[in-house]
């Protein structure tokens, strides 16, 4: 249906406004992180990067980064593996309980993470497990592994089952089919799921809050500082955490292109030498 020119302009403007609305708080934090003053007031008069220096020197920050990275790394690997198989059960095979299974996967996403975090805390207590960064991995998985499954499932839906059947007709075993046909075809989905899992775990706060015990992740530490009063390190570390996410995101987007480009160069070289 035709929409008038004015309507279109208004809608585009609204869309741009929405993006600005989403990122405005990060702009404020960005400015705050380079303010020299110990107590922040806008407009900022003196700019300095000294809080960045302080943050990078601090050993607490180092510990936080290690904890956050370890959790995110392990969550990513587990999510990719269970998400891969889960997505096949979700989208590829027509089995008896598939529809029920799909709904079960979706259910944790509908639960507030704070409530899930507290429930997990009690569960660990009932099991006699002392909460630490290891229990936080289990906590992150409750939200992140279903999302990984959904991301891979999108890819699995566009998968042509005839490819698997052809391999089977040629006498390939289930394991060979999985290795040689299914996995390579779903790989782009698995990689996006890994990216999602890593970034969501890296930035997660509500699930970590109750489940890390004496350990602390970066978002958790920032929250503790925010609640107890202003510290100039909070905006600085907040921005550093965002920068880390952006770098990972860009790397994930650019590395495959770079690889293709290098391969292309190599092929050209071969052609010349012939």
């Amino acid at each position, binding site marked *: 249906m035709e929409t008038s020119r004015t309507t279109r302009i208004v809608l585009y403007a609204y*869309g741009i406004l929405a993006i600005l609305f989403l990122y405005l708080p990060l702009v404020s934090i960005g400015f705050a992180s380079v303010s020299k003053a110990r107590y922040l007031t806008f407009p900022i008069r003196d700019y300095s990067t000294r809080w960045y220096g302080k943050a990078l020197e601090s050993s607490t920050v180092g510990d936080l980064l290690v904890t956050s990275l370890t959790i995110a790394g392990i969550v990513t690997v587990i999510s990719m593996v269970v998400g891969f198989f*889960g997505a096949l059960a979700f989208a590829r095979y027509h089995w008896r309980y598939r529809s029920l299974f799909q709904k079960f996967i979706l259910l944790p996403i509908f639960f507030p993470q704070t409530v*899930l975090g507290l429930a997990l805390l009690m569960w660990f207590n009932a099991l006699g497990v002392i909460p630490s960064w290891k229990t936080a991995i289990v906590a992150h998985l409750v939200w992140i592994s279903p999302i990984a499954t959904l991301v891979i499932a999108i890819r699995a839906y566009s998968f042509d089952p005839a490819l698997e059947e052809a391999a089977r007709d040629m006498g390939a075993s289930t394991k060979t089919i999985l290795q040689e046909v299914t996995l390579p075809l779903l790989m782009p989905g698995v990689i996006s799921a890994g990216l999602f899992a890593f970034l969501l775990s890296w930035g997660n706060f509500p699930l970590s809050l109750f489940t890390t015990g004496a350990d602390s992740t970066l978002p958790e530490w920032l929250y503790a500082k925010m609640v107890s009063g202003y510290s100039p390190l909070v905006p600085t570390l907040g921005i550093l955490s965002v920068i880390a996410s952006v770098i990972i995101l860009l790397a994930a987007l650019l590395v495959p292109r770079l690889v293709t480009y290098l391969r292309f160069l190599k092929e050209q070289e071969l052609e010349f030498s012939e």
Partner: protein
Amino acid sequence: MERLDNKLGMLNALPIFFVLMLSFLAPLIVVAAFSVMPQKVFSLFNAPDFSAYMTIVEQGYWRSLVWSLGMAFASTAVLFILCWPLAFAMAKVFGRFTLILTIAVVVSLFVSENIRLFGWILTLMKGGLIEGHLRALFGTEMDGVLYNVPVIVFGLVYVYFPFMLFPLAQGISMVPDDARQAATDLGASRWRILWEIDLPLAAPGIVVGSLLSFVLAAGALAESKLLGGQVVIVMADEVETAFTYGQDWPLGSALSMVLIAIIGTLAIFGVSKVDLDRIMGRKR
């Protein structure tokens, strides 16, 4: 083939099923069990009584529940009105811009929600980005707009914006253009098309988006703590206090159970409304 599909489907479902049993169902069962324990015990080996639930009724915890549900409802309503035009444009008007908008929104989700809320504190506080610059420009003194109920609702709207936007856009994209075209040709007004075609046909997306933002907002904690400065105590806050300062796990569990019962009912209802094969694009 069918038997093979059954076997393979079951086998492939096992790993994530196991993970979710361990991290989702088992914890919820433990909370349910703890909620019927006598007050202030830390183990499950006690004779059950329902005193924790009695305490909830007697001590006026229902006030927090009303605040949580009320603010969740308000933010859902605001979100619906804010997101509808944008979701409509994403589904029917924008071309490439839909992709840009989608990426921008998804990337914002990768930033920790407390960092983003903290950014709003710096933006809205007295001497913050907005008030500070206004004062420097016009020399007018104003109070910050933090620490009240509307700003908490604002925070909820901000954080759960994507959870309304995407399901709505998905729902609207399922409204066939032919139906809208036919209604226009027959002389229906814009409002009538909205009322009799868009809204009913996009209903699955509306239901999912609204339920998702409502349940997530009802269990939210950081918005009221950071932006609201605890001007009102929400349900998740009461639960946290009962577990930490109160050291009363059965009470905390009973409070959680109230929240879980409401959220769980809505969530199961919402999930049952989603036709995943259709939304995620099965071609067969």
